[in-house]
């Protein structure tokens, strides 16, 4: 009964209240959005690589190496020579290696040169191996294997021909259009940057650059078939991953690679560098969380202000209710119920905004940062945030409630205008 009164009273003042609901929903969207994106980003990053003991590249910074080699964010500062790679791969302590070569792209997706060890040894998530939706790993010079997202969004099937472009941005004059590649395999979806990668062999990378010099095509062109006659063993690679026979020797091998005399190299332990990355951005995450909490606080204060300001006009309403037999505490309850409805509506609308916003931002985040956002329901922590917001709102509603309670006692049944 009192719900209906509260609802009808609120409905009468719906325009102002809708704005209040909207401000609360925006603040909840911010609070939950920051938390959700943070957790999803962590999970994406953590699930991208597994069971790799060291990643080796030219010396830059540990986080930089991790970002460009595994997440395809950023660029390498320098390359690793083929001789150094072979030297280190020949160590007794090293069980397997996967060389990778980055630099080209295909319609916005990164192209990665590697060998068949990649399909065998690369692991992601909880030690999951790469699987093929259809097709096989590349064997011929001009074969390519596509990640699931590449095939889906561009509509490729087995047997299609694709043109690779030089550099990370596709431009017509930087296309290797005389050497098309044939799709021979499409990988299963992994939820990692692998989905957004076009894989070709290291020899393929050499072949497409054979008549290029310093990023520019030379007039003396070499056709695709002629390129086969050349020695296509790679000269340099961007980085390589390796697995050890015995993980306990990780630090010793890492130190030996870091001190390798022939070339400036660095080796990182992916798990350790990921922890470093979290620590670096951990402060920003906390600042964002505090900001979001303050935005919620200001939205609630705004709600308090609007309710207090309408108190005077509602004196007659309260007096009428008292006249028909409402007890003073009913007045208090009325205010609390109204606030409860406002804040619950605000939270629900905020959740709606959140999921719509995430659904729209998903492709962009995946493309720019390799973060895959799962549209899962809010978890325990997020429900608690909603709960605390509702509780706070109810506590705040006590202020106008108690004021109205006292006034209704003072006014009694007479209406003082």
């Amino acid at each position: 009964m009192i719900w209906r009164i509260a609802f009808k009273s609120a409905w009468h003042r719906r325009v102002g209240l809708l704005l209040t609901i909207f401000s609360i929903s925006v603040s909840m969207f911010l609070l939950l959005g920051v938390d959700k994106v943070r957790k999803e980003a962590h999970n994406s990053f953590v699930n991208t690589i597994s069971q790799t003991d060291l990643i080796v590249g030219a010396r830059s910074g540990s986080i930089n190496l991790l970002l460009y080699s595994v997440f395809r964010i950023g660029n390498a500062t320098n390359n690793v020579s083929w001789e150094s790679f072979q030297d280190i791969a020949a160590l007794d302590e090293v069980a397997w290696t996967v060389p990778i070569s980055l630099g080209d792209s295909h319609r916005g997706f990164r192209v990665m040169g590697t060998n068949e060890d990649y399909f065998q040894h690369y692991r992601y998530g909880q030690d999951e191996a790469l699987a093929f939706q259809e097709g096989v790993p590349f064997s011929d010079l001009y074969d390519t294997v596509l990640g699931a997202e590449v095939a889906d969004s561009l509509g490729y099937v087995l047997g299609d021909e694709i043109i690779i472009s030089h550099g990370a941005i596709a431009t017509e004059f930087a296309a290797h259009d005389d050497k098309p590649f044939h799709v021979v395999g499409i990988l299963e979806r992994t939820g990692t940057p692998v989905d957004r990668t076009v894989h070709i062999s290291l020899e393929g990378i050499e072949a497409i650059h054979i008549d290029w010099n310093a990023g520019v095509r030379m007039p003396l062109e070499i056709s695709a078939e002629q390129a086969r006659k050349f020695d296509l063993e790679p000269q340099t690679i961007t980085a390589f991953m390796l697995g050890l026979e015995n993980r306990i020797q990780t630090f010793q091998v890492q130190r030996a690679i870091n001190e390798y005399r022939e070339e400036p190299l660095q080796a990182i332990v992916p798990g350790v560098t990921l922890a470093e990355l979290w620590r670096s951005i951990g402060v920003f995450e906390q600042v964002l969380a505090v900001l979001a909490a303050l935005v919620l606080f200001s939205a609630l204060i705004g709600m308090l202000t609007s309710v207090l300001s309408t108190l005077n006009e509602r004196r007659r309403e309260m007096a009428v209710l008292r006249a028909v037999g409402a007890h003073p505490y009913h007045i208090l309850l009325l205010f609390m119920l109204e606030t409860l409805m406002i804040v619950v509506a605000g939270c629900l609308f905020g959740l709606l905004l959140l999921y719509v916003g995430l659904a729209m931002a998903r492709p962009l985040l995946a493309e720019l940062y390799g973060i895959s956002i799962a549209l899962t329901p809010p978890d325990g922590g997020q429900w608690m945030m909603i709960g605390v917001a509702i509780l706070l709102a109810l506590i705040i509603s006590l202020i106008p409630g108690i004021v109205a309670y006292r006034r209704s006692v003072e006014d009694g049944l007479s209406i003082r205008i």
Partner: protein
Amino acid sequence: MLTFRLKSFSFLVISLSILLFVLAACAPAAPSVAAPTPADLVLDNSAEPTPENPTAIATMEPPPTLTVMPTTPPNVPSLEEAEFELGEALPKVPTTPQESAEATPVAVVIDDQGYRELAWEEMVPPGFRPEDIMAKYQDELNQMQDGDSAAMDLYDLMQEEFMNAPINSELNAQKIKLPGFIAPLEYQDDTITEFLLVPYFGACIHVPPPPANQTVYVTAADGNGVDVGDSYYPVWVVGELLAEGQTTDIGVAGYRIQNATITPYDYNQ
């Protein structure tokens, strides 16, 4: 009058509760903010080229022959200190060279589940401990003149011996409790499930890596992983220590603990 006082009082209460809410939101994350910051996480590998043979054919020296400076005895931090410096180890009961030569264990502390506290020094088998190696070469060192360049070579030799020391197989299948620092290897969401345990902070970055007998490969028991935010702090690892001297079909050489329980290290005990 009364109404006014009530209003201001309730406003105060509201503000305090909101402040508490904001603090509560930040508090769980606070330890990471106050966590020790390793001096310089960016790799600073400025290796000088070897003067003797710049045109030598590229040969990769296998890890055992590392020309690294030895670890000087780390400063033992006071128990109140929350910050750890690179190379700092946890406070320990110092052993005299005589004690280690006789292989007398430090006071054995066994907890109620039958796990005893292990000291990192015990993981180096007797005869290979720094004091023993030092004693072995003492005469040769004493015979050298001041400023002899061969002294550095001798020191490198001693360092190599220490780094290549085998593991102490007597510790196999012992239930132990070992304190140390974490170098994460495998994650599950925000939890570290597998890691390497080392005696001092920052072992993976600048300071010389610990020898193989001062590294333990730990696999956490289900649901017992370490949160990433806590991974910069020292921990107690409790479990059964496996010490394989040789790589076999069933396992690789080195110390391992499987199904370990990991708890924070309370240095105020």
